[in-house]
């Protein structure tokens, strides 16, 4: 028997005749951070809502801590911490009061909540802002207050829907640091994100979904090794001499396993870049960048480069 904190089996959901989640199964083990990545409209948020019992799947099941959603919804939620995509902080309350009021929803006694508040504010680096209202806080502070609020009941499992979207780099790094601390304390985290560096840094395992289906699952490094060549050489074309399209048909093409073209940039994927870099010296007008393949390459390979704005 594994110590799975969250088990989703065969989740399926339609909106109209569009299939949003398509027989999706995954599990989250105790103490791990599982990242769910996918383009807009891939079904991340719907899956997230099904885990919370906010959306009922047409088929399939959600089990949290061995309890069943939605029958055991209240006992599950009492041990869960949630940060949703959009802040739902109380604008009329100070940081302190936000935590106090939220703790009561868990049936906690005021004295017990009060005892936890200073520690949580410190964790969120908001001790100085205890009396400030959310409207007076920066975006990063508001997200950290949302995280502190989600920790009021000392949950074993945290569900975080895009916790750093819209934050500046400093605020994101502070958030990552805090999430790493929580993982060190032994908490489990389910995280959806659009940031591949975030996924790579925080997640033990990743679930890549698109069109509601699981298209890959595994450790970030393993996935990169499995699906990608080790090196990438980006070449910026667009000059009169060398258009991007022209480069993909040039002799350079033979020196890479795989080539992709996006706008004026050509991506050469290769197991060894030496020959390619040598050959590029014959094109003095071109700028290029040699780097190891990363999660973003993986993501684009698996889900394509086309924009999903309609979703």
């Amino acid at each position, binding site marked *: 028997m594994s110590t799975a904190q969250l088990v989703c089996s065969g989740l399926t959901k339609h909106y109209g005749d569009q299939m949003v989640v398509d027989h999706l199964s995954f599990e989250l083990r105790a103490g791990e951070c599982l990242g769910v990545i996918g383009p807009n409209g891939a079904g991340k948020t719907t899956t997230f809502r099904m885990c919370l019992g906010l959306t009922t799947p047409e088929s399939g099941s959600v089990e949290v801590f061995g309890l069943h959603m939605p029958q055991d919804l*209240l006992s599950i939620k009492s041990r869960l911490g949630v940060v949703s995509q959009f802040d739902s902080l109380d604008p009329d309350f100070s940081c302190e009061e936000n935590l106090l009021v939220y703790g009561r*929803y868990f049936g906690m006694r005021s004295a017990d909540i009060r005892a936890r508040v200073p520690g949580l504010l410190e964790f969120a680096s908001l001790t100085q802002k205890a009396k400030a209202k959310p409207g007076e806080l920066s975006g990063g502070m508001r997200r950290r207050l949302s995280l502190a609020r989600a920790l009021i009941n000392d949950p074993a499992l945290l569900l975080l829907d895009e916790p750093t979207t819209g934050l500046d780099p400093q605020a994101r790094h502070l958030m990552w640091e805090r999430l790493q601390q929580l993982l060190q304390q032994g908490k489990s985290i389910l995280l959806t994100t659009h940031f591949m560096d975030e996924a790579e840094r925080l997640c033990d395992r990743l679930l890549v979904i698109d069109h509601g289906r699981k298209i890959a699952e595994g450790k970030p490094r393993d996935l990169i090794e499995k699906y990608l060549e080790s090196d990438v050489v980006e070449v910026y074309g667009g000059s009169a001499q060398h258009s991007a399209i022209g480069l993909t048909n040039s002799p350079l093409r033979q020196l890479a396993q795989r080539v992709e073209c996006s706008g004026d940039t050509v991506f050469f994927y290769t197991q060894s870049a030496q020959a390619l870099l040598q050959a590029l010296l014959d094109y003095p007008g071109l700028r290029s960048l040699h780097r190891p393949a990363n999660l973003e390459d993986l993501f684009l390979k698996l889900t394509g480069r086309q924009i999903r704005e309609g979703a």
Partner: protein
Amino acid sequence: MHLRFWPVFLRNLLVWRKLLLPSLIANIAEPLMWLVAFGYGMGALVGHVSFEGQHVPYILFLASGSICMSAMNAATFEALYSAFSRMHVQKTWDGIMNAPVRLDDVLLAEMLWAAFKALFTITAILVVMTLLGICQTWKLLLAWPILLGVGITFSCMALVFNALAKGYDFFTYYFTLFLTPMMFLSGVFFPLDTLPDALKLFAWCLPLTHAVALVRPLFLDQWPHWVGVHAAVLTLYAMVSWKIALSLTQRRFRK
């Protein structure tokens, strides 16, 4: 009924306590202005009104009706505009439902909260009416729980429209097509006897008419007739609206 609604109710109470003064003025000053302007102004023209064979000073007649209207308005405003802000604009409900609280608990809290706001408003008005000497009978104490019931009825009804709203503009329909006609047809400002039969029949279908029928005699130091019927109509409105509001709100959140 489960006590899970209580922390949500308490949350609203805490916010309200911060905004007590402006809230007090909005809830009490306006009804009192109506009463003073119409009661004394119109009262001077009208003098006395005949009610069940009794000659009643117009201001007393008006006070007994307008207090029901105040309960209706206070509950309606809270369950429409304020509840909608919390539900839709601030996403407060979404935050609460990430904790072990269900949507029906949140809705119950909102319903009782709007009724409480009505109770608070009418309590303050009753105190002022007594101090002004408009009405001084111990039977006002009986009007108090009835008006809480009126608050509950209108709060349930407003939550139906809250569940359907896409924006604040939607509430204009409810006010213009329902609340305002009801205000004029429920015997608040003039006795129903003056209406043509068809309108009279329609008036007796409206919940506010039954609220006034229960409360007015108490103000005049009499006893209301047909208490069971009036109470049953108000209860029926409340229960049916509650069921509809709950199922529409659940549908709204089931996306």
